[in-house]
């Protein structure tokens, strides 16, 4: 990891500062009795000056839209709210790599979209690597690269457009096509000449309106 050997015990803290993990169950990640203290926990462990810690906590809570809950007790928040606090706690560490282990599973659709937009922005603007572990195929479709594991081995790997061209292999892995890809497949089977690999709602809407325009006399 960034030249550090993860087997090297003394390097463990350096590794953890670079790779932030947000887990499936937010209850296991919240450590403090007040939201803002929870978010400050990581930066404090890094030994940052108090002003810097405060700035990072503010920013992280703003990104996950939990600023108004800063004085609340984390364990009394709803499931989705807790998860946003946990994500803020990691963001405040300014990691190089953010690993989300089903971290969006408990969020409402908009909360989920906000987290996905946030991590997309962190990836684009801050150059943070994102590893998003998910059972939601429409979320996997947003990645640049998909890796599928089975029984401890990598069994499929490639850009979403390639991976989602293999419905049979996906079925064997107990996976599925994202809804848009499944619709595309059904439309093609019925003879609709859709080109390319639409994987998102926007891409498919563009492809279909393109077809409709070409059809007009």
């Amino acid at each position, binding site marked *: 990891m960034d030249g550090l050997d993860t087997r090297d015990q003394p390097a463990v803290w350096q590794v953890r500062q670079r790779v932030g993990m947000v887990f*499936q*169950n937010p209850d296991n990640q919240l450590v403090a009795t007040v939201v803002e203290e929870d978010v400050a926990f990581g930066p404090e462990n890094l030994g940052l000056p108090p002003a810097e810690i405060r700035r990072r906590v503010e920013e992280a809570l703003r990104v996950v839209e939990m600023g108004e809950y800063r004085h*609340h*007790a984390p364990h*009394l*928040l*709803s*499931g*989705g*709210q807790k998860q946003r606090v946990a994500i803020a706690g990691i963001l405040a560490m300014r990691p190089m790599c953010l690993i989300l282990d*089903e971290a969006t*599973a*408990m*969020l*409402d*659709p*908009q*909360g*989920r*979209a906000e987290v996905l937009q946030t991590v997309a922005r962190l990836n684009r603007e801050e150059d943070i690597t994102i590893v998003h572990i998910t*059972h939601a*195929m*429409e979320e996997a479709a947003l990645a640049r690269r998909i890796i599928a594991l089975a029984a401890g081995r990598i069994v499929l790997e490639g850009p979403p457009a390639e991976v989602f061209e293999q419905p049979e292999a996906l*079925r064997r892995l*107990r*996976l*599925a096509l*994202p*809804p*848009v890809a*499944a*619709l595309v497949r*059904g*439309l093609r089977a*019925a*003879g*609709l*000449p859709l080109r390319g690999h639409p994987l998102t*709602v*926007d891409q*498919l*809407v563009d492809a*279909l*309106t393109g*077809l*409709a325009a070409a*059809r007009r006399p």
Partner: protein
Amino acid sequence: MIEVRDVHHVYLRDSPLAAVALRGISLTIPDGERIGLIGPTGSGKSTLVQTLNALIRPTSGTVSVDGEDIFAPKADRRRVRQKVALLFQYAEQQLFEETVAKDVAFGPRNLGLPEDEIATRVHEALQSVGLDPDRFGPRSPFTLSGGEMRRVALAGVLAMSPKVLILDEPTAGLDPQGKAEFLQLILRLHAQRQLTVILINHSMDEIAQTTERVIVLDAGRVVMDGPTRQIFARAEELEHLHLGIPQTAQILHRLRARGLPVRTDLFTLEEARAEVLRVLRPA
């Protein structure tokens, strides 16, 4: 039938951290309905369903099950919990017995049923959830896959012979096939046992596939309540509530906004496919 009348609930009342979770909920839930309960994070879904089986006593208002006020001083709340069963989110975390059969037997045993009746119920419940009782009964729950453990937890609930089955995000964390299988199972149980099903779920696609009525909560109030098809036709309102609509329905709405004459009150994959083909049928 469940009747909820003007239920309010405040957590940690009289403390600086008081949180108002429910603000005047009134609902009628007839027997045998398949209901989707949706709403943004923190809107009160989990709180509301816990008042339906008397796990939470609301600050004010009444809940009655089959005509009986479940918070009346003499009410038999154990019987209410048997009638109205709640499968918690990540329910497999609550498995604790050394075998699957013992875990499923836990509820019926607490009801004080005779041993042979308990054995019959365990057998039937495991069969209902698609787990072979002879093969899975003696196994430790902790050697099962996530999806199998979730089924064991559901079997434990079914062994109580409930009339109403409430599921709080039952497919969270399952793989896509596990999710599809679990939802099929719920539909089958609904048909076989004439259960009332109340499903809390953040996936609008799953709600669309499994329910006939949708209740939308926002900030502790019911803000929409109606047939699933009509609710998902109100895309803008749902988006305003942070909820959105199934992806297939999104596609139809956007196509319509771009001038294609497609219907927007459809949402299953098959309906969307047929509708797009109707309008764009290959020459």
